[in-house]
């Protein structure tokens, strides 16, 4: 299944500066594995050393948080959009 993964601005530097990447996958886990397979540097920004998704990074399938679906086992369908949403802190100053 072809799914689109939207790369957030802070992580684009580690994903060939692309806004989104299309990958073939049946689950969210497979999609992220395909993504980090293409862009190895992205891996340490998405996963901690014990292989768990980092707690300041959330992953959505369409508009749903995968933590409330089946996490990385969440099935994806053709045309679904996966969003990686990291916390950003900017505001007042730089």
């Amino acid at each position, binding site marked *: 299944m072809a799914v689109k993964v939207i790369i*957030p*601005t*802070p992580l684009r*530097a*580690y994903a060939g500066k692309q*806004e989104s990447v299309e990958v073939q996958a049946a689950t969210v886990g497979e999609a992220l594995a395909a993504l980090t397979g293409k862009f190895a*540097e992205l891996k*340490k*920004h998405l996963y901690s050393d014990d292989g768990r998704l*980092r*707690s*300041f990074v*959330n992953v*959505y399938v369409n*508009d*749903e*948080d995968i*933590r*409330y679906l089946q996490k990385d086992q969440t099935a994806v369908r053709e045309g679904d959009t996966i*969003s990686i*949403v*990291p*916390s*950003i*802190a*900017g*505001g*007042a*100053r*730089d």
Partner: protein
Amino acid sequence: MATKTGIPAGPAMTKPGVTLSKEEVMRYSRHLIMPEVGMEGQLKIKQAKVLCIGTGGLGAPLGLYLAAAGVGRIGLVDFDVVDTTNLQRQVLFGTSDVGRPKTEAAAERLRNLNPDIRIDTFETQLTSANALELFKDYDIIVDGTDNFPTRYLVNDACVITGKPNVYGSIFRFEGQITVFGYPGGPCYRCLYPEPPPPGLVPSCAEGGVLGVLPGIVGTIQAAETLKLIIGKGEPLIGRLLLFDALAMKFRELKLRKNPECPVCGEHPTLTKLIDYAEFCGVRGEEGPTTVTNVPEITPKELKTRLDRGDDIYILDVREPHEYQICNINGHLIPLGELSKRVHELDSSREIVAHCKSGKRSAEAVEFLRGAGFRKISSLKGGILGWSDEVDPTVPKY
């Protein structure tokens, strides 16, 4: 909690006896003739008390619109002074305000905009020691800060005091907006239980912000604040609005209350404020070198050695767009590309790496030492230090 048609009651209840003067009726006439606000809504706005954390990029449009709308009492918390680099986006301030405390300059501007409202200024840093006391007098807290420790502090203090937190944050050309901490709704920790560990999120190399972005995000925060006050419309509770100014696209994601949230969950384990600098591992802005124990050379030493003809290879590890702003004729390899382009460097030559202020070059030196480079050091204070100590014609950014 909002439902499709339900609206949370505005935190400000209209007290009997509060009225608008003839001048106020004139000033707010475009609100008054609109049924969604009307006299009832305007009186709620007049009695509302909103605390703005940060009077920078987000706080500027927020403060202006809340003051213009007639929010009766606006608190401003900021410990900073106006800096020239703020003027690109912090539209509350003018060139003549450079060097003034932000709260003072902001209050003056807002009082000029609307003399009928009360502006409280707190020229202080929000801390675990003062947050609960500061929040006590306000109905709604608006988070326009720029760092993770303060964001977690604002969140926790809002949950503890039961006040909604109108949240906005920005990065380059992307923004996130939502309302946290509304009774029954999710909080910041439901979304992000923990902050990024220090050094993992790109900071200085990836920094910068499109000047108009905080204008858009702060204005959305102002709209959400006013909606909460008048109790109309569908607030951004349980919804995270993502905005991309380059693509000019808004997207919306569902936010759920995490039953296991340590602050607002069913069995909270965090019931009082903590040390947020420690919790976040003290990170945020580009500060002093975080990679320590790498060899350093001061700008003056480097200049002396270059002048006497020593063979020193200057390696600039900043980004190409930074090189365009100013450079000292270094060989440009951005830090992120160093591992792939290390073959461009000759380990037999003496190398001095530099960046903007010394953080990235320290990382570069650490990496290159690991790759077998021995005659390598980091320029202390970066090109900013060079500008300060050696060549003031090099512009600082």
